[in-house]
């Protein structure tokens, strides 16, 4: 028994030592703070007004450099931005989209978009190579960006993140919010507090007053960052609300099923002497 305890103590000390060794990096490279989002938690849903504001920020600011490879019709998602069919048709028609097939003369041509098309890449950067040539590095496609930017939480936080009532899955949104607010060195437009190594290829893209909101929300960087982070989270996972809704029903069903099976098992086995 004593040997068992000693061995466990030794293992625990080793684990503690490893935690200390890895925690020392945090002082120089802070992790994004956790924000509160409407879509977090067991019953999370997207806030339609927030997503529409976020889309406005994307359209007026981010889309100048960043692609968003989702179809226009996704904006009609009732669990998402919830634009009407006509609004989306008009929006799509305002873009020029390269047609898949050449015309009868064999020429590749552009035409007004339809809701079935994906958002086209920025006009100045039709592909990654053109973007890299102009900007130094190709801006990443935003369709999966919120998923691609979730950051490591480290031990032991990653254990708590998985548990019910605290399941923390919004690291991507928090990261995007943090980056947009992280340009804290006024003289250096490419210095970012949260980017690994503090040197980010994207200079500060958005400041207070850059976008005029029509619903009265103050035109502050904090709001822009929040709204566009929520929009990008929706863009990378439009089915989140449906997933959590179905999940609740499934969990309740399974818990009831497991309870019934437990008592049935007890009843069946009680027949034995």
């Amino acid at each position, binding site marked *: 028994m004593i*040997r*068992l305890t000693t*061995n*466990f103590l030794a*293992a625990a000390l*080793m*684990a503690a030592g*490893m935690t200390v*060794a*890895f925690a020392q990096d945090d002082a120089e490279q802070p992790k994004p703070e956790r924000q509160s989002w409407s879509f977090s938690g*067991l019953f999370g849903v997207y806030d339609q007004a927030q997503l529409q504001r976020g889309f406005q920020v994307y359209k007026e600011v981010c889309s100048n450099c960043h692609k968003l*490879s*989702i*179809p226009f019709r*996704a904006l009609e998602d009732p669990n998402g931005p919830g634009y009407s069919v006509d609004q989306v048709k008009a929006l799509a028609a305002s873009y020029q989209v390269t047609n898949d097939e050449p015309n009868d003369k064999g020429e590749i041509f552009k035409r007004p978009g339809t809701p079935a098309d994906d958002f086209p890449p920025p006009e100045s950067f039709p592909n990654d190579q053109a973007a890299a040539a102009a900007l130094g590095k190709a801006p*990443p*496609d935003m*369709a*999966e960006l919120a*998923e*691609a*930017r*979730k*950051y490591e939480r480290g*031990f032991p936080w990653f254990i708590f*993140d*998985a548990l*019910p009532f605290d*399941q923390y*899955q919004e690291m*991507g949104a928090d990261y995007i919010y943090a980056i947009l607010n992280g340009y804290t060195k006024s003289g250096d437009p490419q210095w970012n507090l949260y980017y*690994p190594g503090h040197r980010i290829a994207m200079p500060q893209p958005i400041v207070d007053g850059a976008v005029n909101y029509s619903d009265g929300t103050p035109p502050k960087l904090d709001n822009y960052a929040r709204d566009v982070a929520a929009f990008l989270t929706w863009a*990378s*996972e*439009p*089915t989140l609300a449906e*997933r*959590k809704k*179905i*999940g*609740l029903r*499934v*969990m309740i069903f*399974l*818990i009831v*099923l*497991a309870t019934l*099976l*437990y008592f*049935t*098992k007890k009843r*069946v*086995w009680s027949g*034995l*002497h």
Partner: protein
Amino acid sequence: MSGSPTYVPKSALGRWFESRLPIMGLVHSSFVAFPVPRNLNYLWTFGAILAFMLVAQIVTGIILAMHYVPSATLAFASVEHIMRDVNYGWLIRYLHTNGASMFFLAVYIHMFRGIYYGSYKAPREVLWILGVIIYLLMMATAFMGYVLPWGSMSFAGATVITNLFTAIPLVGTGVAHWLWGGYAVGDPTLNRFFSLHYLLPFMIVGVVILHVWALHVAGQNNPDGVEVQNVERDTVAFTPYATIKDLFGVSIFLILYAWFVFYIPTYLLDADNSVPANPLVTPAHIVPEWYLLPFYAILRAIPNKLVGVVALAAAIILLAFLPWLDTSKVKSGKYRPAFRIFFWLFVVCCVGLGYLGSQEVSDTTTWIARILAIGYFGFLVVALPVLGLIERTKPLPASIADAVLAKTKPAEAAAPPASR
């Protein structure tokens, strides 16, 4: 163990069919009348859980394969199409990716149960070896499956693991080129990985059938490690006793599975795999999926490439020799106090190696990984052989029935059981 009376179907149609293909009799003798030790604990429900997960993976995988495109230019987009446009595609995909992790969680619990209770000992050696073969096939399947979305980490993982073959002297590079279908991981690699990923699960099904057959020849092991002596006293019929217990075990496991799928579906997904693969851009930290991490840590801990690859292979292949590495005549860890200590140390080594496999390499992690790897191999090739020769075991119960009675009615342990 298959000495049950011949099954006679009740209906005339049933008898007609049974005389031509006795499948009902087979199911009856294997899963209805089959005698199961009555002292099994819930760790024994993991066989049924694994069978369920195998079917779940095959069903979700076949549906995914209807929409997935195994081409380097279209794979990532096809997965996006599944997630966004295919009806409940997001659900099928999350079921499949999290199902793989749940499959491995169950298989590790199943394997550690086998090691603790000595389920690999005579007469179950072939059963155990078939299990190791299933495990190897699972790892190959999972590795190839992870490559299919053609994300940044898929590409990096494929490159790292297939490059291990270049460690083979003389023919290594040639073998790697043959596997890749080119001079590096690329479109041909993806195509053949898809073909093999579709094939291997059906090979797993075949080996699982052999595994269950081998199990039914010897019968289950049990927590006391004492073989069945009297079928009436020591065992219960599979149906309804084991059936209902397995169903309950599966339902609890499903709750955990559903939690992952519906509330934390991307918890185990590396962020870099949401970025399309680019051969010119390597992820900052290349890590495999969690269930391969301990072996990754062992590989990285050894400075020599060939020795590292050999150690990686040995870490898995050695498991097949467990029936002969362990010299103890006593099966169950319940009666082997010294073995128990080393067993839990082994578990700590495995978990520790797994954690280190996920971290960036540094001097600290390397020497800790080396110590843990020595612990891992030490358990298998030193502790197990030596322990069997020098340990003092606790006295075994006379039979399974006695063990059950001792547990449930300690005051009446000496009294004879009620007559049947």
